[in-house]
C-alpha cells in the first residue's frame, strides 16, 4: 500500500466529516480532517451562533466542540490531545465517552493528537492519559449529554428529569414512543457550547460544564474489557507509521553527527560523494546534512560524505569505568531534600545498628525499535509536520520556533512511530526535517540510522544512590536516609517545544536551559527520622552530546527502586524480619499494604529472613524477591522468581507476580497487557542495558552493543492481580509497573545467591564476577 498524500487530503471539511457523508477520510491510520480553505473562507467572519450552529467554533479548550462531535449518523468522534503508545488509551477514552454519553462503545472513535483537531492536553506524559486526560474527557462528555438532553426536553416538551438516554436516543422514561436522537438534535452541526476552562494547556488542562458525571455504580462500559482498535492494522501490515508517510515532492534528508562529541564543524569534502548523483549538502553552523530525491542515495551520501570536525580531543566523557567515581566526586549544581522528618543524623548517631550502602545505575538508551523519523513541509500553509513524537503539540511549537514562525503556524500530526517511552529522538528528527525543508524548499523526510538512534538519542541519567539506615536495640528501623547523586533528569526537556532541547537547535547555537533536577523515592515507609533527596551534577558536555539526558519510561523509577527496595530488604534482614512482613509493618497506609498482601498471597510467598541461598540444582540456583513502589498515586508490588545460572551468570526471571492498584479500572484487559509489557521492558533494563562510551563518543550504538531482552528471557508466567478501587479516581498505568521490577529482581537474586548486586545492569558478566567474589 503506497501512501502518497498531500496536505489536501487533510482538507476535507470537518462539516463533511460531521455529516457522515462518507468523508471520514482516514489518512495514515485515522488522522482526521480540518475545515477546508474554501469552507473556511466561506465561514470566515461568520460567527458561531447558538446551539446547533453550522459554523465551527474556534479550536479552544473552552468549547465543547473542541473535544466531541456528534455526526449526522449518530457516531461520535472525540478529539483528544494525548495519544496512545500501544497500550489502548484511545479505547479507554472511547469507553469513558460512550459511558457518559450513553451511546454504544462501537459508536465512538477517539482521534488523537493532531494539532489541527485537538487542543494541547499534554501528549503522552507521565502516565496521565486516563488520570488527567480521561478525567477531562469524562466531564466534557457528561456535559455534552446534559446539553443534548436539555435540548431534547425542549423538543419533547417534557422536563429533562423525565428523560433517559439509550444508545444516543433520548426518550421519555416509560414512554419510548416520545423520543429524539442525538443525531436528530444536532444534525451534524456544532454544539457551540461554552465550557469553563482553567486556562492551562498540557497535562493540567481541565475544562468542564455544569454536568456531574455518572455514578460508578451505574457504569456499563467503563470497567469492561474492550479490544484494542489498532491491533489488526499492525498485525496485517496495513497500519502506516510515521516512517511510511510520503508527501508529493518529498525528498530524503540525513543528518551527520560529529564522530567526536564536542567537536565543531569545519567543512566537508563535496568530492567524496560525487559518485552519488543529485545530492545536496546543507550546512549551517555545526549542523550538516545531505538531501537526495532517493532514500538510498541519501543513506549512502550520509555514510560517504567526508566531514571535517575540529576541536575534538577534549575527551569530555572520561573513561567508562570511572563513571560512578566521577558522579561521586562531581560538584553539585542543585540539590533538594524533598522529604524530611525528625533528625536523621541524630537518630543514626544514636542507633544500635547502622547500615550503609551505595548503588549504581548506568545511562540507558530509549533505543526505540527504529531510529526516529519525521516529515516536514515548511512551504505549506500551515506548515505540515508528521511526527512520532509523543507530544506533537509541543513539537509543533518547537518546529514553528525553529522556522521563526508564530506558534500556531504549524500543523503537527501525530502518527504512530517506532515506539516511544518518553523523550526519545522523535523530536530531534522533527527539528532536523524542519530546518532542511526550509533550506531546500521541499517537503523533507528525515530518518536516522540505527547507530544514530541508539547512539544519539537522549539517555536516562546515570546515578549513584547513597543509603543509610539505623535500627534501635529492639530491631526497629528508626532512621532512613536516601540521597541520589546523578546527572540531570532533564538536561534536555521532556517536550520538544524549544529548539534548544534538540540536536539541530543546539548545533545552531541555541541558548541552553537545562532543568537540573532528579527525584527521590516516594515517602512511603513509616520510619520516624528520615531524609529523602537528591543532588544533580553538571553534564559531561553541555550541548550536542550523545549523553544528554532526559525522560525514559518511568523516569528515575528503575534507578531509585533498584537501590531503595534492595536497601529496605537489607534493613529487614538486619531487623531479623521477612521482607514481606517488613513491608507490612513499615508501609504507611492500608492501601499500600493491601498490595503487599495481595501479591504475597497470589505468589504463595513463604516467609524467610535473609537469603535462602542454594535453592535449586547444581548449576542453577533460584530465589524470589519482592519490591514495592508508588508512582503518582498508582501502587504496584512485584514478586520476581529468578533462576541464576552460576556458570554463565545468566539471570532468568521465571515468573513475575504483580499486584496493581490505580483506582478505578477502565479496561482490565488493556491494563493487564500494559503491565505485562512494562515488566519485561523493566527486566531488560536491569539485566542488560547499559550505555557504553569512550572518552568522546557513545560506543553502544546498535543491538549488539546495546543488547536488550530477547525471547529466551521471556518469563514463563506474569500473574497480575488487579485491585479495582471504583471509589477512587483512576490513576496512571503506563509506567508504574516498571518501577519496582529492578528491586524485585535484585532481591530475588540475593535470595538465590546471598550476593548483593549494587551496580546495574546485572549482566551475565557482572553476575559471574560478583559470584566469584562472593
Amino acid at each position, binding site marked *: *500500500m*503506497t501512501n502518497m498524500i498531500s496536505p489536501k487530503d487533510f482538507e476535507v471539511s470537518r462539516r463533511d466529516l460531521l455529516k457522515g457523508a462518507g468523508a471520514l477520510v482516514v489518512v495514515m491510520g485515522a488522522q482526521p480532517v480540518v475545515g477546508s480553505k474554501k469552507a473556511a473562507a466561506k465561514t470566515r467572519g461568520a460567527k458561531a451562533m447558538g446551539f446547533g450552529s453550522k459554523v465551527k467554533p474556534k479550536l479552544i479548550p473552552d468549547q465543547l466542540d473542541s473535544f466531541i462531535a456528534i455526526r449526522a449518523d449518530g457516531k461520535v468522534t472525540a478529539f483528544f490531545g494525548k495519544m496512545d503508545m500501544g497500550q489502548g488509551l484511545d479505547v479507554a477514552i472511547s469507553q469513558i465517552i460512550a459511558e457518559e454519553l450513553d451511546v454504544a462503545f462501537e459508536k465512538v472513535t477517539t482521534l488523537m493528537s493532531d494539532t489541527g483537531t485537538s487542543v494541547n492536553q499534554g501528549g503522552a506524559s507521565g502516565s496521565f492519559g486516563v488520570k488527567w486526560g480521561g478525567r477531562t474527557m469524562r466531564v466534557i462528555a457528561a456535559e455534552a449529554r446534559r446539553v443534548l438532553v436539555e435540548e431534547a426536553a425542549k423538543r419533547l416538551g417534557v422536563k429533562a428529569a423525565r428523560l433517559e438516554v439509550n444508545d444516543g436516543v433520548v426518550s421519555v422514561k416509560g414512554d419510548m414512543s416520545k423520543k429524539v436522537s442525538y443525531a436528530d438534535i444536532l444534525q451534524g452541526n456544532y454544539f457551540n457550547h461554552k465550557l469553563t476552562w482553567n486556562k492551562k494547556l498540557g497535562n493540567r488542562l481541565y475544562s468542564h460544564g455544569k454536568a456531574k458525571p455518572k455514578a460508578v455504580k451505574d457504569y456499563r462500559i467503563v470497567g469492561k474489557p474492550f479490544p484494542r482498535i489498532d491491533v489488526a492494522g499492525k*498485525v496485517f501490515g496495513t497500519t502506516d507509521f510515521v516512517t511510511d508517510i510520503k508527501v508529493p515532492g518529498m525528498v530524503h534528508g540525513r543528518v551527520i553527527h560529529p564522530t567526536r562529541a564536542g567537536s565543531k564543524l569545519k567543512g566537508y569534502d563535496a568530492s567524496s560523494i560525487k559518485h552519488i548523483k543529485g545530492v545536496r549538502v546543507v550546512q549551517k553552523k555545526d549542523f550538516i546534512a545531505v538531501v537526495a530525491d532517493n532514500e538510498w542515495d541519501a543513506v549512502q551520501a550520509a555514510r560517504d560524505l567526508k566531514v571535517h570536525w575540529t576541536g575534538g580531543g577534549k575527551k569530555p566523557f572520561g573513561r567508562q569505568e570511572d563513571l560512578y567515581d566521577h558522579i561521586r566526586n562531581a560538584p553539585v549544581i542543585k540539590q533538594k531534600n524533598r522529604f524530611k522528618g525528625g533528625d536523621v543524623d541524630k537518630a543514626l548517631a544514636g542507633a544500635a545498628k547502622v547500615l550503609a550502602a551505595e548503588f549504581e545505575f548506568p545511562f540507558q538508551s530509549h533505543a526505540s*525499535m527504529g531510529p526516529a523519523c519525521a516529515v516536514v513541509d515548511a512551504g505549506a500553509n500551515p506548515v505540515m509536520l508528521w511526527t512520532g513524537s509523543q507530544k506533537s503539540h509541543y513539537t509543533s511549537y518547537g518546529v514553528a520556533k525553529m522556522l521563526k514562525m508564530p506558534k500556531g503556524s504549524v500543523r503537527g500530526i501525530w502518527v504512530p512511530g517506532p515506539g516511544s517511552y518518553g523523550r526519545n529522538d522523535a523530536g530531534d528528527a522533527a527539528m532536523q526535517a524542519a530546518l532542511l525543508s526550509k533550506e531546500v524548499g521541499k517537503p523533507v523526510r528525515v530518518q536516522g540510522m540505527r547507530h544514530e538512534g541508539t547512539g544519539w538519542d537522549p539517555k536516562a541519567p546515570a546515578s549513584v544512590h547513597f543509603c543509610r539506615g539505623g535500627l534501635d536495640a529492639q530491631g526497629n528501623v528508626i532512621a532512613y536516609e536516601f540521597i541520589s547523586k546523578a546527572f540531570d533528569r532533564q538536561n534536555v526537556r521532556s517536550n520538544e517545544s524549544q529548539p534548544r532541547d534538540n540536536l539541530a537547535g543546539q548545533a545552531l547555537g541555541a541558548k541552553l536551559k537545562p532543568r537540573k533536577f532528579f527525584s527521590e523515592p516516594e515517602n512511603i515507609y513509616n520510619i520516624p527520622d528520615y531524609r529523602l533527596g537528591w543532588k544533580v551534577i553538571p553534564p559531561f558536555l553541555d550541548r550536542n552530546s550523545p549523553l544528554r539526558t532526559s525522560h525514559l519510561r518511568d523516569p528515575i523509577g528503575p534507578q531509585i527502586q533498584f537501590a531503595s527496595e534492595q536497601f529496605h530488604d537489607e534493613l529487614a534482614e538486619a531487623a531479623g524480619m521477612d521482607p514481606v512482613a517488613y513491608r507490612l509493618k513499615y508501609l504507611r497506609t492500608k492501601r499500600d499494604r493491601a498490595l503487599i498482601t495481595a501479591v504475597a498471597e497470589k505468589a504463595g510467598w513463604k516467609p524467610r529472613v535473609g537469603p535462602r541461598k542454594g535453592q535449586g540444582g547444581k548449576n542453577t540456583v533460584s530465589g524470589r524477591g519482592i519490591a514495592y513502589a508508588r508512582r503518582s498515586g498508582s501502587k504496584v508490588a512485584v514478586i520476581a522468581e529468578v533462576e541464576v545460572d552460576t556458570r554463565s551468570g545468566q539471570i532468568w526471571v521465571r515468573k513475575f507476580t504483580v499486584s496493581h492498584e490505580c483506582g478505578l479500572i477502565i479496561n482490565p484487559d488493556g491494563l493487564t497487557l500494559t503491565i505485562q509489557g512494562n515488566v519485561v521492558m523493566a527486566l531488560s533494563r536491569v539485566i542488560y542495558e547499559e550505555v557504553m562510551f569512550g572518552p568522546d563518543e557513545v560506543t553502544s550504538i*546498535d*543491538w549488539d552493543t546495546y543488547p*536488550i531482552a530477547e*525471547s*529466551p528471557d*521471556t518469563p514463563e508466567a506474569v500473574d497480575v492481580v488487579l485491585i479495582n478501587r471504583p471509589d477512587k479516581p483512576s490513576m496512571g498505568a503506563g509506567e508504574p509497573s516498571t518501577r519496582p521490577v529492578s528491586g524485585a529482581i535484585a532481591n530475588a537474586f540475593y535470595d538465590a545467591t546471598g550476593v548483593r548486586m549494587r551496580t546495574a545492569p546485572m549482566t551475565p558478566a557482572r553476575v559471574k564476577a560478583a559470584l566469584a567474589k562472593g
Partner: protein
Amino acid sequence: MAKPQRMRLNVNGGHFTVTVDPDMPLLYALRNDIGLNNPHFGCGLAQCGACTVHVNGKAIRSCVTPVGSVRGKKVVTLTGLGTPEKPHPVQTAFVEEQVPQCGYCINGWIMTAAEMLNKNPKLSDKQIRAGLKGLKCRCGTHFAILKAVKRAAKAMAS
C-alpha cells in the same frame, strides 16, 4: 554504488518492474519503489528482524539482502502472508492475544514465527524461544508474543 538496473520482482504474487541499484537492500525497493510499507527499517544490520520478508518461503532480513539477489525468486511480505479475510494462523493468534504495542517490531515476529511453524508446528516451548531469538521488541511484548506463537502452533498442529 552499482549502476541502476531494470529488474522484475515477484512480490506477493504480483510482478513489479523497478530500476534500481542491484546492491541496494531489498527493504528500500519494497518500501520506496513498490510501496509496501509493512517491512520496517529497524537497524539495517540484521540485528532486529523488523524488515523480515519471506524469499522462497524462507524468512530473511531484507535490510541486508541486495535487491538484485532476489530476481526470479518469490518474495512475500506481511500483507502477502495473510489478510483479515484470509489470515495466517500466526496473524490470527497475534490478534487474539492483542500482541502489539507500538507494533513496529511485529512484522519480524510474525514473519519469523510463520516460517518456523510452516515448517514444523510441533515445537516445544524451548524450541520456540530459540527459534525467535535475535528478534527485538522494545515495548516488551515478549510474553504476549510467546502466548500467541504457541496458540498458533497449536492451531496449525491440529
